[in-house]
Structure formats: structure tokens, C-alpha cells
């Protein structure tokens, strides 16, 4: 080795180290993903910028691949780039016993956010943008909206884990997004508790007693918030009447008829009773889901004319070629007949009305199937999830959170048939490596022959 070459190598290495030191202090980055997976929404930017003092973020990861650390830390870096108050510290879950004990961490790969003496924990499923932003806003506001969930009249229950009609996914969403829930036996209620930030009545099958209706009426008149979902062809028609009685002051009602969608572009490909919607009315609820398809299975229509003081916004409507069947028929006999009502129909609508210093807000849904487990991820796309979450956030007057959409994951779902799988396995596992082996054998043979 000559002295000159050593000197050159040392100088170049020193320059490279210097370049790295300089580059590591700046974070210019370009997000090239189609859906802006590495770009915060304005709501998240706002949540970060509104921090008044340091938010200590502690990542307690178990070292190893597949722990989600890289993705989570990349996300935290996006928040840190927006606010110097986002301060990140990484710890080893297995060796940092003090933090694990202090924050009562139960599982590895958990992130803790501490802000002004309050803490929020994010487990791996919640370590996405919606989860972080919700946690930051919750820590800043200190408010946890309480959803009082009506039970006892045949309503869908949050504890029902049935993969089809269960509502446990909604319970998970609410917990994930910093809502508290409490069951409320509506039939026994003479008033809606004052700490209920909103009331959810989903698909009751029996008649609501008059005192309960009076309680709902009083609650709404005082600026209460209500999510109300009905079903077509109610087993007890009087149950639908009682629901409509609650809506009477606002001028709207559920028709009770089953909506049939004939337009292939506005329904499930296999079932005309499952309405598909991709164009929505303008509302904070729908800001981020325009163009995405949500499903309304077995829905009835919302009818009537809202009162003059009511701001009514149709969120989802069917096509002009849809129709509604008032009286129950067999599944094989759903073709259009004389007397069937003609569309389009509204199947989701919001109402808003001033109530003194407060605002009454109501979300109406023509189907309880809108947010049942089979309609939400992982069984379905996340448009229904975003709509239902945005509805709860709008009702909770967390309008700043309403538009925090859950982004499309990096991996698209596939539906490969057995034949597809066989073809793909043959091409990738047999054909491609086989061609390389063949090329190697030919090369070896040629070398042998020509040498």
C-alpha cells in the first residue's frame, strides 16, 4: 500500500462520515406512495401542532424483525417533524422493567404517550395514524365521549362476537378511538343519563315504552346526540312506529319497506338487497370516503320532510331504478311488482338542529347491518368502518377527528381460486427456478464440451 493511497482513503472516509453526520440531522423525504401512506392528514398535523408542552412517546419494543417497530417509528417521526414537542424514546421491553412497571405495560411492542401527567397506551393494532391522532387529541382534551348503548329491546349488542350479525367490531373501534361505552336498558329508563354524550339505538325489535320515548325526546331536545338504525320488514310493525315517534319532531321517519337495488353499479354483484354506495352527500362524515364503496345490506328507506329548523343531509342514496317492497315476500319473489315504491331512496341521513347553546345531532341508518361484523374489516373493506367511526365522532362533536381516515394498508386483499393458486405455484416454484437450473446445466455442458 502506498502512503498516498492510504491518505486518499482516509480523506474520503472522513468526508463520507461528515456527509452522514450532516444528512442524519435533516430529514428531507419524499412520500412516493399512491395514497400518501407517509403523509399525515391535516387533522393529524393539527393534533401535533396543538401540543403545548412535550409529549413523551416511549416505544417499548421486543428486538427482532416483524415487531412493527420500523413502521411505528416512521410514523412517530412524521409527528415529530410537525412539532418539537413530540419527543421519542425507544426502550427494550425485556430489559426496561422500570417503564414496563411504571406504565403497567402488558404486552411487548406497546407505545406509551405521556402528556401533562396523563398517559395513553397504543398496542400494535392501534399504532396507525388514526390511533396516534386520536390519542394525542384525547390527551389534550382530556375528554372521553361516552356512548350509551341501548339494550333490552332486541337491539344489536356490542358484546355480540358473532362473525355475521355481531357488533363486537364496533366495540373494538370505539375502544380504539378513545370512546367509552355503557349499556343502557332503555325500557327501564325514564331519562337518559346526563353523562351520555350520545345514545345508540341499533335495530330494536320490540316496541319502545312510552316513558322511554319521552326520555329520548327530552334528551334530544336538550341537545342530545342519537345514532338510530332500523330494519325493514320489522317483525313487530309497532316497533317501527315507536322509532318513528322518536323522530317525529324532526319530520323524518323510516318507511319499513325493503329496498331493492337494480342498478349493478349500486349494489352487491350477488345480492340486490345489498345496496352499494360510492357517492355521498357533503358532510364532515364523508369528507374522506368519497369514491369508496360502502354497503347497506337489507336496508329500509328514510322518508319525510325535515322541519324548517332542521339541517338534514342525505349521506347515502340509492339509484333511481331502485324500488322498495312494503310487505314481506319470499326471497325468490323480490321482483318488482305494482305497488312497489320507486327510488331513489335515502338510506343514511344526518340531522342537526340548534337546541339553545347546544346542537342536537342525529344519524339515521336504514339498516343495522351497516356496521355488523361481516360488513367491517377484515371481512370487508374499511369504508363502512370509516363511515361508522366518523358518525360517532360527528355525534361526539369531535369534528376535528371526523376526517382522520384509516388508510389503505400496504397489502391488498386477494381472492385467489384453487386454479389461480395452482397456476401461480407452478409458475413461481417450478417454472422460474427450473429455467435457471436448465440454464446452469446448459452452461456447464457447453463449458465441458468446448473445453
Amino acid at each position, binding site marked *: *500500500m502506498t502512503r498516498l493511497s492510504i491518505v486518499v482513503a482516509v480523506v474520503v472516509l472522513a468526508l*463520507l462520515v461528515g456527509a452522514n453526520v450532516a444528512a442524519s440531522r435533516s430529514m428531507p423525504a419524499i412520500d412516493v406512495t399512491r395514497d400518501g401512506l*407517509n403523509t399525515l392528514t391535516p387533522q393529524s398535523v393539527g393534533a401535533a401542532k396543538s401540543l403545548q408542552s412535550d409529549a413523551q412517546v416511549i416505544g417499548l419494543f421486543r428486538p427482532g424483525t416483524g415487531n412493527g417497530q420500523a413502521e411505528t417509528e416512521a410514523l412517530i417521526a412524521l409527528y415529530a417533524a410537525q412539532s418539537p414537542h413530540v419527543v421519542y424514546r425507544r426502550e427494550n421491553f425485556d430489559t426496561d422493567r422500570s417503564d414496563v412497571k411504571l406504565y403497567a405495560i402488558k404486552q411487548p411492542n406497546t407505545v406509551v404517550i405521556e402528556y401533562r401527567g396523563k398517559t395513553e397506551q397504543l398496542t400494535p393494532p392501534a399504532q396507525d395514524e388514526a390511533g396516534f391522532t386520536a390519542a394525542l387529541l384525547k390527551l389534550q382534551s382530556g375528554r372521553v365521549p361516552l356512548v350509551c348503548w341501548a339494550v333490552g329491546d332486541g337491539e344489536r349488542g356490542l358484546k355480540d362476537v358473532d362473525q355475521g350479525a355481531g357488533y363486537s367490531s364496533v366495540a373494538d373501534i370505539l375502544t380504539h378511538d378513545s370512546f367509552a361505552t355503557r349499556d343502557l336498558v332503555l325500557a327501564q329508563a325514564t331519562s337518559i343519563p346526563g353523562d351520555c354524550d350520545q345514545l345508540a339505538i341499533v335495530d330494536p325489535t320490540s316496541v319502545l315504552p312510552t316513558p322511554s320515548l319521552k326520555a329520548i325526546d327530552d334528551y334530544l331536545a336538550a341537545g342530545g346526540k342519537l345514532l338510530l338504525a332500523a330494519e325493514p320488514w320489522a317483525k313487530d310493525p309497532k316497533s317501527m312506529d315507536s322509532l318513528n315517534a322518536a323522530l317525529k319532531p324532526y319530520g323524518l321517519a323510516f318507511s319499513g319497506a325493503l329496498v331493492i337495488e337494480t342498478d349493478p353499479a349500486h349494489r352487491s354483484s350477488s345480492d340486490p338487497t345489498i345496496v352499494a354506495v360510492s357517492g355521498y352527500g357533503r358532510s364532515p362524515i364523508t369528507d374522506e370516503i368519497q369514491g369508496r364503496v360502502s354497503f347497506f345490506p337489507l336496508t329500509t328507506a328514510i322518508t319525510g320532510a325535515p322541519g324548517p329548523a332542521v339541517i338534514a343531509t342525505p349521506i347515502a342514496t340509492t339509484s333511481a331504478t331502485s324500488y322498495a317492497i312494503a310487505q314481506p315476500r319470499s326471497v325468490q319473489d323480490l321482483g318488482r311488482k305494482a305497488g312497489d315504491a320507486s327510488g331513489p331512496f335515502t338510506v343514511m341521513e344526518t340531522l342537526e338542529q340548534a337546541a339553545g347553546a347546544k346542537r342536537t345531532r342525529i344519524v339515521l341508518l336504514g339498516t343495522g347491518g351497516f356496521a355488523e361484523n361481516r360488513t367491517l374489516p377484515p371481512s370487508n373493506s374499511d369504508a363502512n368502518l370509516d363511515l361508522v367511526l366518523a358518525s360517532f365522532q360527528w355525534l361526539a362533536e369531535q369534528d376535528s377527528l371526523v376526517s382522520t381516515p384509516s388508510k389503505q394498508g400496504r397489502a391488498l386483499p386477494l381472492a*385467489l381460486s384453487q386454479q389461480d393458486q395452482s397456476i401461480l405455484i407452478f409458475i*413461481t416454484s417450478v417454472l422460474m*427456478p427450473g429455467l435457471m437450473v436448465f440454464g446452469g446445466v446448459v452452461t456447464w455442458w457447453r463449458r465441458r464440451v468446448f473445453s
Partner: protein
Amino acid sequence: MRSEAVRVNAAAVPARIAAPTQVLPRRSSIGTIGAIARRELVALLRAPLGWGVAAVFLFFASGFGFIGTVIAGQQASFDGIYQVINGLLTLALVPVLTLRLRTEGATRIPARDYELVAGRWLGAFAFYVLLIAMALIYVLLLAIYVRGQSLDFGLIGATYVGLLAVGAAATAIGVLASGVVNNRVVAYVLGLALIGWVWYSTFVAGSFSGTARIDFLDYVSAFNRYQSFSLGQLTLRDAVYFASLTLGALVLATPLLRSKR
């Protein structure tokens, strides 16, 4: 650039090497590097070794990366394939590719030391590029089978940029390792160890105390620096890191080669 002819002084050539009698064209540095790279690439393509590496890579990429992730998981994800590229191709197979680049015969090539190092690195890296280009077949297949959806080509493109950066650095480290020792097995183990340490240093960071030391190990870990690409970001810091790693390894390899020549 102007080419000039250089008459090789036969008396200056070591006796064990047949002295060339013809006039050799003296190329520009870029031309020389390109010629050496072409020679190395062609040699890899004409050797059963290159085809064997390609077959092993595709077998594992298909088995673990595609069937294990895409078909079993019913999701259009390339993460499994990228893991095979980084975990198998870069870590275990790149040192194999650079084995034949060891300094044996270096004295017979009329080129400057840095031209020789750069040319050999470029030849091996070009072969690596061909290998990961073959993985685009998986992208093509999934683009067909996602039906009604479309792949995020921005994300795929960023990840490929990251794979190229990782491959460039790993190949340079392999060239460096092959320049340190002449023994093939030792050179392979050294290359494997160097690339493995650079890739996984973040995972030993937890064994240390001291924030500065942990931060240093985190920073120098290629695994960490690659993550931004795999998430669909093009980051200046990580681009500088991989460029530095590549250039640094090649710069270190140059005086080592000179000592051997």
C-alpha cells in the same frame, strides 16, 4: 474522452505472466471500468455458479416469499419476497458472487487499482440487479391477479430503490472482503460476517447501555436505513448512508488490492 495507445513494456511484466506483444488500447477510466464490469458479468453468466445462485434465489423467493406470504395469506404483499432478497440474496448469496472477484489474477489486468475495484463491483452489482429484476415477475403476476384493484407502484418503486441501495452496499462489502484475503472460504465467511453485522447491528444495540452507543448502532444498521424505502419514502439521510457505505467499502478495497498487486 480521448483514447490513447500504450505500448506495454514486456520487460516490466513479471516473468510468470505471458508478456503481451500487441499494442493494447488505453481506455478512459470509465471505459476500463465498463470493460472490466462486462467481463465480470459475462463470466458470472457463463458460469454454472451464476445460474445456481439465480435458481436458489428464485426457489426461496417463490417458496417463502410468494407462496408463504401471498398465496397462503391471500394478500398482494411483496414483503416476503423483499425479506428473501435482503435475508438470503444480500446476506448469503452476494458474498458468493463476489468470491470470484478476489484478487487472484489482478496483476494480469492492465488497469489502475480503483478501476479494477470499481469494475469488479459493477459487474457483480449488475448481476445482482438482474436477479432482483427477475423478481419483477412476481409484481407482474400480482398486477394480473389483484383484479379490480391496482398495486401501489410508488411503494414498489421506492422499495426497489432501497433494494438497489442495499445490493450496491452489500456487493461493495463483498468486494472488500474478497480483497482482504485470498482464501475463498475465509473471504466468504468474512463477507457474510461484515454484511451481517452492518445489516443487524441494530439488534445488538439493546445489549448496550449508553444512548450514544445505541444511537450509533441504530444509525449504522442497514436494516434501519432500508426501512424508509420499504415504507415508500425516499429519504436523503438513508440515500447518503448507502452511497457512503458503498463508496467507503470500495475506497478501502483499493489500497488492499494495491498491496496484493
